[in-house]
């Protein structure tokens, strides 16, 4: 469906479906995303407090250490995998779930995102993930990006017993932005389209996703090459510095940027894209990474978010199985 005659830009950084090899090669695709919270969200690992880090940003006189809130890599992988599985159930009737040890190891999602073990004793198989996520950091300090909210679950009886129904979990505020990169290694164009589709369509992350955690993923660009691109941490630092230096914005110091009441997602998106591209040029004297033209990305995303996805997945499934079964011949 996606061949290199139509999309020559993808030849570097992806592999053809019939050339998938079980020994890793250096074909990398980076999807640059800005995740924007459109509602409150809960990202915790203990059920109560948000995960925080301590990050130094800026240099010289204007240097700060701030505490960004974190969107752990697993919060992103978990949600995207569940969404990918449900897409497959809709489109291809594949009954594969996120049950630990219960993965089918036979669908596009399992073979792309990996699966360490299955219930099937006859098929001892471990598949390494070819999609890599990175913990994402808020641009603003936790003091402004996170709010504790008092919750009480009183029930509606007139007479009640005294019960411990009160808790105060940390909520990330709507409008919070997370610069993020998703990296694919040795993926086919169809697998890239699948991940783009998931990224474009998945809108729920974190805990209590049936009520909270609405996220808008702005896909800012796709980059291909023979190596990994910059990491979220460095990009987030760069965006903060760039927002400070931007003449069009009011913040003048790092402190102003990290305590700002809100940032414009579009402006942040522009800065993030430029920060990514600047780092490609600057890191180690230039990383071997090229931007994929927007038309190609739009085509892939359109295929993955439209009716064509079933066909894309069907074709890819054959290639994925052949890829997996290569290991039998060893």
């Amino acid at each position, binding site marked *: 469906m996606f061949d290199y005659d139509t999309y020559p830009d993808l030849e570097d950084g992806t592999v053809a479906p019939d050339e998938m090899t079980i020994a890793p090669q250096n074909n990398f695709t980076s999807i640059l995303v800005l995740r924007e919270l459109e509602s409150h969200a809960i990202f915790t690992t203990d059920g109560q407090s948000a995960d925080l880090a301590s990050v130094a940003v800026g240099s010289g006189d204007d240097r700060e250490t701030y505490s960004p809130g974190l969107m*752990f890599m*697993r919060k992103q992988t978990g949600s995207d995998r569940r969404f990918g599985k449900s897409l497959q159930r809709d489109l291809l009737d594949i009954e594969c779930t*996120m049950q*630990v040890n219960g993965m089918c190891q036979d669908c596009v999602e399992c073979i792309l995102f990996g699966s360490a073990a299955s219930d099937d004793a006859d098929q001892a198989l471990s598949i390494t*993930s070819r999609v890599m996520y990175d913990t994402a950091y808020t641009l603003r300090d936790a003091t402004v990006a996170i709010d504790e909210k008092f919750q009480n679950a009183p029930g509606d009886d007139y007479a009640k017993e005294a019960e411990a129904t009160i808790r105060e979990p940390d909520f990330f505020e709507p409008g919070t932005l997370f610069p993020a990169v998703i990296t694919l290694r040795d993926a086919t164009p169809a697998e890239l389209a699948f991940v783009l589709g998931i990224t474009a369509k998945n809108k729920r992350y974190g805990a209590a996703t049936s009520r909270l955690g609405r996220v808008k993923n702005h896909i800012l660009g796709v980059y291909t090459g023979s190596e990994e691109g910059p990491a979220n941490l460095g990009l987030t630092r760069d965006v903060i510095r760039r927002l400070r230096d931007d003449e069009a914005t009011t913040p003048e110091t790092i402190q102003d940027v990290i305590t700002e009441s809100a940032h414009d997602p579009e402006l942040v998106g522009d800065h993030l894209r430029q920060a990514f591209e600047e780092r490609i040029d600057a890191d180690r004297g230039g990383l071997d990474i090229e931007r994929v033209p927007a038309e190609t990305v739009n085509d892939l995303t359109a295929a993955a978010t439209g009716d064509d996805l079933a066909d894309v997945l069907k074709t890819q499934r054959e290639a994925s199985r052949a890829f997996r079964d290569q290991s039998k011949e060893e």
Partner: protein
Amino acid sequence: MQSALEVTLRTQGEIWFASREVGRLADTEPYFLNTALYYAFGLASGRYVDRLFEPTYLDDTADVADKVYVTPATPTEGVTNRITSTYNTSTGDYATINYSAQDDPNEGRNLPSYGRRRVLGHGNELRCYVFGRGIDTDELRAELPGYVRLGKKRGKARVDTAPLAVDHGTGEYELGHAIGAYDSDQTPVGNLITKQMRPTPLIAQGAYDGPHVVLSNPTSEPEKRDTSDSSVKLPADVQFLRRKR
């Protein structure tokens, strides 16, 4: 022709692997063994699909072992940024049964659904040395990527390299950087500190007697080079899993 690089790995997010598992707690030691670094640097290639469940270090590094030696990475500073967190896997099903411990059908099977782990956070700095035989410094530098993925969930780390000068020496010397326990035929003569790690133990410190290489800052004049204690000395025969080959 011999060449060497000082390689600094700066973690960009959490990196974890289980150095030790105590019940539901998994702990990550701040060391990257060279068994992992060969793959991370792209010097050796593993397999996406595994049916053997056996390590294949020797086969995977057969082509590169004579050419390049990578030491394990150890923290540059004593203090490292570690994060302890709880994990909880969720299946995505609308309804799940929460069995009591008495009638859990998966009792006795290792199906980790929740637990705690102590991981390496961002901002940790670890150092390793890459030593090349028959390969010049620029070539060696070009072999290494700008970013690598490490650990069970593939955490990201930035790679910075600095060239080093290589000199030769013989006689008694102190090991300048940790090596794998099977990486040299030379036997330590004293002052030995080892660290038990899987899959290979580390020799963190040791006095040796024999031919060695001295890796030092290349900016100084050859005769003025700091070949004293602050330079890094490695056994001359050092090679990845040498004793296992």
